[in-house]
């Protein structure tokens, strides 16, 4: 157990922690950018004098920063190794892809949670946030359950750089952009053109957002700038179930797609850095 699963899983946490530490100046730059981005969006709500809009925008910015960080950490982990030239060594280790994914995801979750907390703190410098009455613990639960589906999506996106060293990285970013567009991060899904709307229901972020808005009490009639009336976790059970089901479907699907891509890469010689 220890030697077959826990130590190899921990190896990825160990590696990603040290890589993050060594690239810390980049982490600072990206986090700074994320704070500025979130603040400029939230200030649109402040300018309108509408606390509901402000909270919707803040929630959207934070949730998206969390989920996209999670997705990117996983999707880029393969591209990074390919670029660094270590991919062959990681792939020839006696480690199952599930353990590999769990290790990378464990660090990604930790990293994304910390990053989102820092962004929230930074945001408080620009926007006067009163979150009294919001069910923040409930939001955390939604985030963690929603992470499962994003792990699966990240894993599917991670194969793109294996299949095409040239265009793979662009493709993962396009996929991320589509998720941002269809999930109604800053607006209700109903404002999207009718032909895009069905896509919204395929994105886990849509459900994570809907649930989080209820838990924060953003739309509750009794909510006011002085205090929010957040819903209890029991009110978002349907969304949680959908997120859980998506996770249970996307992770095995991701592993399957990944193992097919790995086989294909081993047939065509695509694991090598050059050629």
């Amino acid at each position, binding site marked *: 157990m220890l030697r077959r699963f826990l130590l*190899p899983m921990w*190896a990825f946490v160990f590696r990603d922690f040290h890589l993050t530490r060594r690239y810390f100046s980049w982490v600072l730059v990206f986090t700074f950018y994320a704070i500025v981005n979130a603040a400029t969006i939230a200030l649109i709500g402040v300018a309108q004098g509408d606390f509901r809009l402000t909270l919707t925008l803040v929630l959207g910015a934070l949730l998206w920063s969390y989920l996209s960080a999670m997705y990117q950490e996983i999707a880029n982990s393969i591209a990074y190794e390919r670029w660094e030239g270590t991919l*062959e060594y990681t792939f*020839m280790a006696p480690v199952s892809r599930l353990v590999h994914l769990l290790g990378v995801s464990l660090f990604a979750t930790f990293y994304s949670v910390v990053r989102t907390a820092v962004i929230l703190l930074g945001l408080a410098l620009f926007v006067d946030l009163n979150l009294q009455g919001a069910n923040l613990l409930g939001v955390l639960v939604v985030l963690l359950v929603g992470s499962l589906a994003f792990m699966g999506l990240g894993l599917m996106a991670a194969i793109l750089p294996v299949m095409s060293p040239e265009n793979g990285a662009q493709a993962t970013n396009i996929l991320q952009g589509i998720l941002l567009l269809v999930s109604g991060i800053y607006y209700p899904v109903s404002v999207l053109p009718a032909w895009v709307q069905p896509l919204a229901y395929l994105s886990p972020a849509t459900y994570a957002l809907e649930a989080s808005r209820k838990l924060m009490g953003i739309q509750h009639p009794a909510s006011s700038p002085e205090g929010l009336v957040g819903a209890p976790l029991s009110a978002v059970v349907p969304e949680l179930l959908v997120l859980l089901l998506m996770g249970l479907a996307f992770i095995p699907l991701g592993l399957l797609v990944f193992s097919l891509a790995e086989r294909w890469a081993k047939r*065509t010689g695509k694991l090598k*850095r050059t050629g």
Partner: protein
Amino acid sequence: MWAIEVKNLSKVFRKTTFGRRQEEWALKGVSFQVGVGETYALLGPNGSGKSTLIRILSTLLLPDAGRVHILGHPLPQEERKVREKIGRVSVDAAFYKKLSPQENLLFAAQLYGLSPREAEARAMAILERLGLETRRFGDPLEEMSRGMQQKVAIARALLIRPPLLLLDEPTTGLDPKSRRDVQAFLEELRREEGTTILLTTHDMVEAERLAHRLGFLARGQLVAEGTAEELKRLAGALDLEEAFIRLTGEGLQEEAHAP
């Protein structure tokens, strides 16, 4: 049981350029065996298929035809068992270059289920034996010379005490002293742990010093095989280099004239 048993191994790379499909046979019907505890050197001109062969043996490439058994395990069926038993060093020291040797080695060790403590002790011993100053153990690898990186790569391959080592040009780019350190270390390893070694090199002296038997690879085919003495006799050559050129060289010229 053989440590490596390869029968009729073929590998083709296909690519499409400007709509024209091209086939490149990197290996064509290669067969050979390496005994347990034996050191076997593969020699061949650039592009003759040495690295491709090593990649197939290290479970990173799937062949198009042929059979491979590593320490009795068939590939690719028993891939995981094979992976637990092989260490590989490639010509490019593939590391996370921002991380230190220590971090790189600890990552590799944990990946193979070794506890950090046992891994660290063993890594230190190997690196000291190879003459790397251990005080630089915490600096990023990108600040180190190629020779130093290559020694860390060797240490990584040896962390798990693999019964089979696959070495793809392990001493290319090392200075003469470092090269000797590595060679002496490999001899010691073989003596003390009975490690089987498959090695590719462009250094004839190294091949002659280390290998019990040698194979000449040319255009994806094993054109000759035997001890250094046997190969020299076969080619009617005075030294191994001459034998190499005689046995692998002619075909290349033919190919240069081919349309």
